[in-house]
């Protein structure tokens, strides 16, 4: 895919090197555990010779892998593919077709906003593909080898010069190929279906199009009573045309129909889009002007958004990084979607809130002495001798210190100060150099709010009382490529809620097809990982148990991972499993302290041990949340490389080698005769 912008525009680029290091560490730890376990088992069965036997087996896997024959692998892959096809795996297409044939009956809702309808269609297609293919791939991959062993058809394969890795890789490749074909066909059908459904349901639109160099607003409404088209060209008066139906309009007024078609295609492109956002970090400034971690709590139990009070000094601060000249030379687009909380009705409930953005150039820095020790900004002062130099008092002595810039992502707000995330003891000095308040505007609460920042920003400077002009990149973006946007609500008594994702720099959008393809890629990678896990499990378990194990891994990795992370991180109140049972049986509230005695100490000790087990489970089970890309696409966003694509690819590849190792030794160390 051609990408005109570097990937580093994302706030946290995916670090493949770091990920590889972590993977290598995890796999090494896993292998060491495996070897220790195998040695213990071998000692029990073979005595002192046991560990030696284990050591003799270790080099066999790499040796097997090196001598792999692609022809044999493809032969087994093709056999697997044929087997699945001839065992009617393609019946799933029938179910898919049925869903699409009748799905629109239940999904078309003309009263719903178009973007919500689009969201429904996309979610429906991606969910249908995922949940139709998941059981197919899970059962096929978990039952293939056990069935071969049960039918003894594997006997005729393993008595040929076929290596165990070839069997495993061939099986994985065969199922993955089948999945690829299924996913591609279903993805293309899904895309066409979405496109047609959206086009069919787009009955109301208002678009400005270029007609002979003149901006022309085309408003189109298609209702049961008939079609009404309003055309406003430049300063010319509005022309209203009515027709009984769309086809009648086409027959009676072909030129106008062509105009509505152009507007319709443009509207379609606006609804089916893959936006590319650059997200920033969010912090707040309180009424006293001091930085604060969160805004006002309006009593909403969902704390995703916090609020700034209108008509006060409350501000929301968004810091964007990597705003280089290559993306901002022609200006920037800021897209916002804030939520209002009204304390009074005002003149008209339909009237939206008034909002103002200010662009701020900031310098964010820490200081270091000659020994590279970091000195907090609170102890720093300007040198009396040299106005460009700084001094600080360290251990009672005056030392000269140097200023170092800090990236916005490394800074957070604590105790009304900006501090370094890595060392919260270090206060970061944030100085405002230039401030450019933009014109205020009314927000649309349930739609896109796009503020276009031109390369030259013109604003009214209250201090001088003059209009000033600043260059966006040269004057307002700091040396680190950072731009700060400060948000203020101008309506007194009203509140404006926001979260990190509610304001972003919008880069030129990708086509919807690109975003949708990436989401389909996510589904495909998840299915591939299921294939890898399923085939591996089937090497040492029978079909039903292998299916169950793979399904549980999917369930835990998809749905229970946040809960598991909380348990392992000790964030769940009420203690571990045993403590929870005791609290339930004895009806002890989760916030009550347990009595301190030997019994409860033992229970906590056992829970600690079980927690270690859960820690291992959490680290063994793949995090399937990485593959959930439908949320991005359904909300009109492109799937980001660093946050979604790269982790998905990483997770899929990371499990391949350990699974191959487990599968190889499982097949090699078991008797393949079914009993």
């Amino acid at each position: 895919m051609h990408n005109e912008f570097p990937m580093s525009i994302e706030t946290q680029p995916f670090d493949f090197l770091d990920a590889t290091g972590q993977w290598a560490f995890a796999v090494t730890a896993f292998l060491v555990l495996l070897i220790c376990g195998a040695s213990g088992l071998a000692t029990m069965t073979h005595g002192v010779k046991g560990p030696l036997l284990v050591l003799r087996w270790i080099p066999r896997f790499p040796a097997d892998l090196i001598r792999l024959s692609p022809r044999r692998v493809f032969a087994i892959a093709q056999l697997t593919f044929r087997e699945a096809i001839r065992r009617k795996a393609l019946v799933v297409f029938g179910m898919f077709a049925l869903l699409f044939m009748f799905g629109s009956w239940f999904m078309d809702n003309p009263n719903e906003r178009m973007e919500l309808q689009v969201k429904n269609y996309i979610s429906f297609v991606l969910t249908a593909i995922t949940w139709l293919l998941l059981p197919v791939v899970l059962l096929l991959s978990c039952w293939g080898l056990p069935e071969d062993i049960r039918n003894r058809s594997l006997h005729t394969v393993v008595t040929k010069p076929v290596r165990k890795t070839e069997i495993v890789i061939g099986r994985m490749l065969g199922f993955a190929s089948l999945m690829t074909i299924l996913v591609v066909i279903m993805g293309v059908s899904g895309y066409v279906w979405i496109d047609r459904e959206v086009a069919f349901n787009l009955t109301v639109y208002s678009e400005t199009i270029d007609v002979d160099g003149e901006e022309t607003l085309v408003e189109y409404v298609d209702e049961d009573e008939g079609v009404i088209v309003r055309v406003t060209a430049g300063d010319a008066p509005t022309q209203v045309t009515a027709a009984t139906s769309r086809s009648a309009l086409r027959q009676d007024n072909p030129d106008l129909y062509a105009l509505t078609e152009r507007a319709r295609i443009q509207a379609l492109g606006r609804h089916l889009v893959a936006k590319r956002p650059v997200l920033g970090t969010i912090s707040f400034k309180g009424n006293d002007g001091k930085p604060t971690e969160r805004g006002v709590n309006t009593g909403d139990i969902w704390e995703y958004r916090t609020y700034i009070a209108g008509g006060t000094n409350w501000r929301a601060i968004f810091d964007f990084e990597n705003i280089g000249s290559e993306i901002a030379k022609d200006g920037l687009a800021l897209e916002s979607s804030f939520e209002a909380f009204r304390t009074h009705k005002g003149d008209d409930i339909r009237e939206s809130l008034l909002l103002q953005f200010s662009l701020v150039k900031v310098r964010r820095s820490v200081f270091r002495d000659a020994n590279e020790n970091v000195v907090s900004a609170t102890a720093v002062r300007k040198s009396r001798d040299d106005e460009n130099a700084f001094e600080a008092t360290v251990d009672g002595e005056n030392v000269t210190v140097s200023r170092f810039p800090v990236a916005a992502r490394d800074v957070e707000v604590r105790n009304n100060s900006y501090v370094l995330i890595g060392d919260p003891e270090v206060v970061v000095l944030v100085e405002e150099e230039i401030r450019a308040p933009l014109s205020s505007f009314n927000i649309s609460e349930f739609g896109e709010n796009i503020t276009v920042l031109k390369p030259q920003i013109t604003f009214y400077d209250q201090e001088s009382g003059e209009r000033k002009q600043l260059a966006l990149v040269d004057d307002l973006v700091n040396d680190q490529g950072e731009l700060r946007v400060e948000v203020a609500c101008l309506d007194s008594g009203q509140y404006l809620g926001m979260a990190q994702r509610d304001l972003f720099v919008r880069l030129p959008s990708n086509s919807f097809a690109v975003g949708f393809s990436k989401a389909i890629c996510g589904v495909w990678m998840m299915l591939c990982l299921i294939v890898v896990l399923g085939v591996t499990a089937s090497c040492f378990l029978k079909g039903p148990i292998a299916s169950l194990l793979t399904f549980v891994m999917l369930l835990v990795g998809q749905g229970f991972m946040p809960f598991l992370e909380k348990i392992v991180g000790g964030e769940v109140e009420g203690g571990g499993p045993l403590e929870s049972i005791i609290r339930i049986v004895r009806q002890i509230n989760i916030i009550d302290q347990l009595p301190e005695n030997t019994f409860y100490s033992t229970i906590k000790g056992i829970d600690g041990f079980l927690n270690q087990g859960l820690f291992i489970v959490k680290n063994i089970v793949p995090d399937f949340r990485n593959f959930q890309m439908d949320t991005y696409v359904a909300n009109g966003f492109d799937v980001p490389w660093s946050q979604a694509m790269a982790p998905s690819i990483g997770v899929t590849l990371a499990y391949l080698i350990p699974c191959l190792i487990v599968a190889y030794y499982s097949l090699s160390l078991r008797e393949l005769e079914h009993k």
Partner: protein
Amino acid sequence: MDTNEAVTNETIPESDESPEVVESDTPAAPGADEPVIKIRNLSKIYRDFWGRPKVQALNSLSLDVHKGEVFGLLGPNGSGKTTTMKLLLGLLFPSGGDITILGELPTNVEKNERIGYLPEESYLYRFLNAGETLDFYGRLFNMSKSDRRERVDRYIEMVGLTHARHRQLKEYSKGMTRRIGLAQALINDPDLVLLDEPTTGLDPLGTRDMKDLILKLRDEGKTVVMCSHLLADVQDVCDRIAILYEGELKQLGRVEDLLTEQGRTRLMTSKLDDATVAEVREVIERHGASIETIDHPTSTLEELFLRTVEESRERPGRRFVPEDVPASDEEPAVSESE
């Protein structure tokens, strides 16, 4: 021969636990130097899930199979024939003892390049057709496409399945499945062929073809190991046999040596009249021996069947008509006495 009289093969060391094995002292097939298969004190115990012994399938089995011979493993059901075969192929792991096959361990994959295996039942992929089946197994031997195509055609024709080449194996009869199973076992032109119950499921013609093929393989210098409980088949083709009973080796040696009754003599002549028979009896009795039976030799049922089928092929439409049923004029018939 008195079965209590043990003749121990010098090349096979006996374990302490080994029972006495009766073996012919006649040397193995000519030209056999290095054994193709060498089994020493082989034991196999099947265990349950908890590792407790369930069945002792083999107990201290020791034997050699030499290059170029047809070796038969005989025994009733559950005697350990198939277990031995699977241990040789590495499908099962021994509980004790050693095996080398073509000079390698059974778990060594490379040795399979030179081995062909026909399982007890043809455990093939039933969703493939004959051509696809042989092509698949050919690819497992890393054969080139042209080589595979040539061999697939040759072996399908050899086993007589050209007419059913494009039918899936699930539509095949048992005999046809055995034939395609045999073709897959031979696709790599192996040096050692292991046949587990090769004639099971075959009609007498198929059985004869299979036996002819085994003998042809032997003539080509290949080693064949077969296990069966159809004694006539084994007797027809095997050079040496081993008889297993409850996992133990009871007999081992050349077929003719094991079957020859050294204490008796059989004469076969053209048909004699009663006077001549009396005269012969008198001569024999004069030498201190006695005649136990005098009768006319009978053909085997297999020979009769094959002769009948062959004649039917040569004279199609000819049918058997019992003597009490008048034959129609149009059709050639064979009478009951014919």
